[in-house]
C-alpha cells in the first residue's frame, strides 16, 4: 500500500509550514468515510477499509452506531479491528450473534440495515463493483475471492457506501465482471428493475469524495481532499471523470480523529502481532 503524505492545507507550493497535523492519504480516506456515518445507522461492515472507517465513526462522533458483520454479530463493539470477518473479538463484544442464514435473510434481505460499506477490486462510473475476476470468467487473468456477501449488501442495504483507493486499474470504464449491482451498467438498470434500496450514494477514495448525479447516477466528484487537484483525480480515474458544479474541499482529519484512528491501528497490530487492518 502506498500512501501519499499530505497536509491539512491547500495544494500547491507551500510558503509556510503546514498548518494542520501531518496525515496520510489513507488516513484522510478513512476519516472521510467515517464522517458519513451517524448514530442512527445500522451498518453492514466489510473487512479492511470499511471496518476501520466504521469503527472510527463509533469511537468518535457516532458512539451509538450499530455495526453488523456478515459472520452474524449484531451491534458489535470490537476493541481492535478484526483480521477476518469471523474474529472472536466481534462475537465477544456483540449484543448477540445469529446464524449466517438468518443474517442474510432477516437482517440484510429483510431490510434491517441502513448502510452497507463495501470495497472491491474494480468500480465503474455507476458504482457497480467487481470482486470476482480480472480477465474472462472462464480464462481469468486474476481470480479474485468472489462476491461473499457483497451482491446481497448491494441489494439489501438502504444505501451503499464504497471505499476504494483511487487508481486507473480500479476505476475502470468497463468492469470485467459485475459482481455487485450499483446503479447498473448504464446507470438506469437498478431503477428499471424496481429495486427499492438506493444503491451507492457515496464513494470515498484517497483523493476525493464522489456522489451520484441525481439525474444520471454517475458518480461525480463532490469534494477533493486537501491538496488534491482535479488533474490528479483525472489521472487516476479510468473514465472521463466529472466534477460537481461546486466541488468542496474535504475538511482535513482533526487531531482527535487521527489520534483515535492511530490508536485503533496500534491496538490492532499489537493484538494480531501483525499489521492486520493497517490498510488505512
Amino acid at each position, binding site marked *: 500500500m502506498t500512501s501519499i503524505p499530505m497536509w491539512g492545507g491547500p495544494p500547491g507550493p507551500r510558503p509556510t509550514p503546514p498548518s494542520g497535523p501531518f496525515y496520510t492519504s489513507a488516513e484522510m480516506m478513512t476519516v472521510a468515510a467515517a464522517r458519513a456515518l451517524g448514530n442512527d445507522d445500522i451498518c453492514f461492515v466489510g*473487512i479492511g477499509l470499511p471496518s476501520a472507517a466504521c469503527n472510527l465513526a463509533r469511537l468518535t462522533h457516532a458512539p451509538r452506531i450499530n455495526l453488523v458483520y456478515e*459472520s452474524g454479530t449484531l451491534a458489535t463493539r470490537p476493541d481492535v479491528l478484526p483480521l477476518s*470477518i469471523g474474529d472472536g473479538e466481534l*462475537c465477544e463484544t456483540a449484543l448477540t450473534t445469529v446464524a449466517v442464514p438468518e443474517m442474510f435473510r432477516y437482517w440484510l434481505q429483510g431490510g434491517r440495515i441502513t448502510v452497507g460499506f463495501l470495497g472491491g477490486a474494480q468500480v465503474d462510473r455507476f458504482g457497480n463493483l467487481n470482486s470476482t475476476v480480472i480477465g474472462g470468467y472462464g480464462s481469468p487473468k486474476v481470480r479474485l475471492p468472489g*462476491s*461473499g456477501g457483497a451482491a446481497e449488501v448491494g441489494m439489501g442495504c438502504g444505501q451503499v457506501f464504497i471505499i476504494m483507493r483511487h487508481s486507473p486499474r480500479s476505476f475502470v470504464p468497463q468492469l470485467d465482471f459485475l459482481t455487485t449491482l450499483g446503479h447498473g451498467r448504464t446507470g438506469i438498470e437498478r431503477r428499471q428493475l424496481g*429495486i427499492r434500496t438506493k444503491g451507492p450514494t457515496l464513494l470515498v477514495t484517497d483523493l476525493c469524495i464522489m456522489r451520484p448525479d441525481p439525474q444520471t447516477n454517475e458518480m461525480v466528484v463532490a469534494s477533493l481532499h486537501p491538496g488534491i487537484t482535479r488533474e490528479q483525480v483525472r489521472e487516476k480515474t479510468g473514465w472521463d471523470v466529472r466534477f460537481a458544479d461546486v466541488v468542496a474541499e474535504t475538511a482535513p482529519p482533526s487531531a482527535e480523529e487521527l489520534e483515535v484512528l492511530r490508536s485503533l491501528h496500534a491496538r490492532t497490530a499489537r493484538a494480531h502481532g501483525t499489521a*492486520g487492518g493497517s490498510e488505512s
Partner: protein
Amino acid sequence: MEFLTVHDAIARHVKDGDQLALEGFTHLVPYAAGHEIIRQGRRNLTLIRMTPDLIYDQMIGMGMARKLIFSWCGNPGVGSLHRLREAVERGSLEIVEYSHGAMAQAYEAGAAGMPCAFFRGYRGSDLPAVNPDIRFIRCPFTGEEITCIPALRPDVTIIHAQRADREGNVLIEGIVGVQKEAVLAARRAVATVEEIVEDFGPRSTNAVILPHWTLSAVAVAPRGAHPSYAHGYYARDNRYYIAWDAVSRDRETFRAWMRKNVLEAGQ
C-alpha cells in the same frame, strides 16, 4: 450416532467422489478432520463451502478435488489462496460460484427438505450468466421476480464444535455460521469436538445444539480447529494464516510443507 476416532469417522463416512462440506465461518473450521481426509487420500471430491480457506487450499493443492462450490475464496485478512487460484486459472478445478446469502439459503433449503432456495438476489449481476443453476421465477401473488438455486445436500458435512455430551449431542457457541444448516442438509454428518462432557450443565434455554440423532459420528479432536479458533478454548493462530501465503505460493514448497506437517504428522 456413534463415538469414533477422527481416523475411523473419516474412514467410515467420507468416500471418494463425495460431495463434501467442511463448514465453519472463520470460527471452528474443522482442520483436524480435513487433515485426516488428506492423509486418507480421498479423491474426486466435490468440495462445498461458503468460505474456502486454507484447508480447501490444501486439499485442492493435493489434487483431491474436481469441483468447488463456494461463495468467497480467500485467505481471510491475508490475500489469495494460491493453490486454489492456480487450479482455477489453469482450469483444472470446476467451480460453481454463488454469493454468501444465496449459499447460506441453499444450505437452509437443504436442511428444510426443500428442493431449492427462494430469495431475492443476483438481479443485475453477472453471476447468473456464469452459473446456470441461478434461475428466476415469479411470485404467484405479486408477480415479483424471485431467485432460485438448488438446495445443497452434501453427501457428508463435517464440522468442529466445542463439546459433546455423553449422548453425542453437540453444543456450538460463538459464531455459529452455517454449521447447523450444513449438518441438517447432509446425508451423513460428522462432528469433531474439543471435549466430551458428562452433561452440558446449566446453559441458555436456546443454546445451539445439534441432537445426537442428526449426526453419524462424533470424534474428539482437541485443538481440532487450529489454526482457526474455538470460542472459549483457544484463539485464532493468525501467524499460521499469514505464513500460509508464502507456503502455498510455490508448488514445491507447498508439497514439502504438506508432507512434513500433514501427511507425516499423524492425527
